[in-house]
């Protein structure tokens, strides 16, 4: 198992290096950093001085190394647009996105698994068929339309919930949370449904098809033949086996929640890192784009790693392989 973990960690590090290279290349080659930092009135002496300060006169590899070095320390330079350190802006924005992602991730996983199991067990029932049909529409419905639809219904027509922003937040240390105020919680409802719905649909459809596959297996028939209660067969025997493949996809889904947050945050003007990223693209604010890319890569790679390790917790066959079995 240790060898496996080391291999996976090495792979993750390699991915991060590649992503870092992309981010660095953006810095270095997309637009001229000197152009971006110096105004119209500049002298050749200014340019040369800045080249040395930024290290642009050094070889590519040295520059890349320095970029990585400062990136690891959380230093991504200064935003072209806001003129403040990128890390500072990111820290300010991160809580909003993380809280949103956590709530929608929870919604997507819990409802997705529950509905998936339900539709698999009641395969031919009316409710299950209805849920499946609706979910097909859900897959075709772009996230931003779901958001607009919810805003129209609950903000414009009914006026129950706010259509934008986080509501009031409370600062705890460096973390501003919306969980502790009524308006903060209310503001969370629509965005988290918007963000979680698509992922929920995917998880539900996956759980259903895996569960149906498992229910056809011999060991399920054998469990039935031993007279176990239907509940034990479905939830103890079948669900556990279903979860093994579901975990991978769900892990990846959690990653894409962070990415899809960009869309939701734009629809709801949610002040998170996604909205920051979109604005950075619009204004070609390269340092912010590069930092966001690095940040999200670390998250994705981390989630993938955790998913791989989770396998060991669930599937004893893998645990056995580490010691070669006995």
């Amino acid at each position, binding site marked *: 198992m240790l060898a496996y973990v080391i291999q996976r960690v090495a792979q993750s590090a390699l991915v991060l290096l590649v992503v870092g290279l992309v981010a660095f290349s953006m810095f270095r080659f997309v637009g001229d950093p000197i152009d971006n930092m110096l105004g119209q009135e500049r002298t050749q002496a200014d340019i040369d001085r800045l080249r040395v300060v930024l290290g642009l006169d050094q070889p590519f590899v040295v520059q890349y190394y320095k970029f990585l070095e400062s990136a690891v320390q959380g230093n991504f330079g200064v935003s072209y647009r806001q003129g403040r350190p990128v890390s500072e802006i990111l820290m300010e924005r991160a809580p909003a996105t993380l809280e949103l992602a956590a709530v929608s991730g929870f919604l997507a996983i819990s409802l997705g698994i529950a509905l998936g199991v339900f539709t698999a067990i009641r395969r031919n029932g009316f409710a299950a068929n209805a849920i499946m049909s609706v979910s097909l529409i859900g897959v075709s419905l772009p996230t931003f339309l779901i958001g607009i639809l919810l805003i129209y219904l609950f903000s414009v027509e009914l006026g129950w919930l706010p259509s934008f922003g986080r509501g009031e937040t409370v600062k705890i240390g460096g973390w501003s949370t919306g969980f502790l105020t009524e308006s903060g919680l209310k503001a969370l409802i629509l965005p988290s449904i918007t963000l979680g719905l698509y992922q929920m649909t995917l998880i539900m459809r996956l759980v259903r098809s895996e569960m149906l596959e498992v229910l056809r297996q011999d060991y399920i028939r054998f469990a039935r033949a031993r*007279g176990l209660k239907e509940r034990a067969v479905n939830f103890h*025997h079948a669900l*556990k086996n279903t979860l*093994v493949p579901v975990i991978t996809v769900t892990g990846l889904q959690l990653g894409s929640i962070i990415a899809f947050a960009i869309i939701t945050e734009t629809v709801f003007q949610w002040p998170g890192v996604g909205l920051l990223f979109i604005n950075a693209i619009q204004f070609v604010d390269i340092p912010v784009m590069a930092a966001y890319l690095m940040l999200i890569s670390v998250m994705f790679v981390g989630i993938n790693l955790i998913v791989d390790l989770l396998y060991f917790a669930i599937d004893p066959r893998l645990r056995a392989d580490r010691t070669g079995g006995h």
Partner: protein
Amino acid sequence: MTKPILSIRDLTVEIPTRHGILRPVDGVSYDITAGEILGVVGESGAGKSMAGNAVIGLLSPPAHISKGEIHVNGRRVDQLQGDAMRKLRGKEIGMVFQDPLTSLNPLLRIGDQLTETMLAHLDISRAEADKRAVAALEEVGIPGAAERVGSYPHEFSGGMRQRVVIALALCAEPSLIIADEPTTALDVSVQAQIIALLKRLCRDRGTAVMLITHDMGVIAEAADRVAVMYAGKLAELGPVRDVLTAPLHPYTDGLMGSTPLASRGKARLHQIPGAMPRLDALPPGCAFSPRCPKVQAVCRQDPGPHIEDGAGRAACFFPLSREEVA
């Protein structure tokens, strides 16, 4: 005569399809008494497994029992639904499936699978169940049972797994065991051990056994009586010695002729021409008539009478006489 544990009368299973109704089991009747092993033989598709599934109430829809009765321990069970049928499975009827590699849930320890089955049927404490689980594994000949209860299925070899499956089928002390091709998926060297084990356990406990197989060697080794099935119908039923050495039905004769048996000496093996008809293309009259060496015009119109000869019976107009075969 003792009262039979299992009594099947005129059992008919139907599967409605687009091309009409198929009858994989058609008017089959037989009994099994306590401690007796009834071998059910036939080619694949002859309906032997389907009959076993009908008894334990595990026919997969749309297959269903359309006619006839099944009695277990004197109680009619073919009309039991839901929980009533579930309580019967494992408790009164145990089942052993063909493939031990797929019959056990890979994610659950075998000890847990045993105790779970016992707790579902027997009024015993958790601790008592744990104790009995070890005893059950010892009984089926698993070395180091006390340690192995905590093992997962993949940590056992195929033969050992089939022992575990047998322990599972017997752990709630059923009076009838349906063993569906219990040795087919095993190495030849292990087959005899498993058959001997099954035989010993059932003799000791007085369990009735329905041993479904296509392997004449297994029948000769283990069965007290044999039921020969052909295209859903019972072709012949009788004591194992009679059926093997002096069959009544021409099909049984052909089946024996194509099986190498030590008792038959060096006689040449011969084969039955043609193949068993598909269930959707059964000939009128006797289903074996197109392949039968003794076929007459009447066989092609009428399925044939049930003739009795001593302890055996067969469905044929022109049974082989005992003398003719011997």
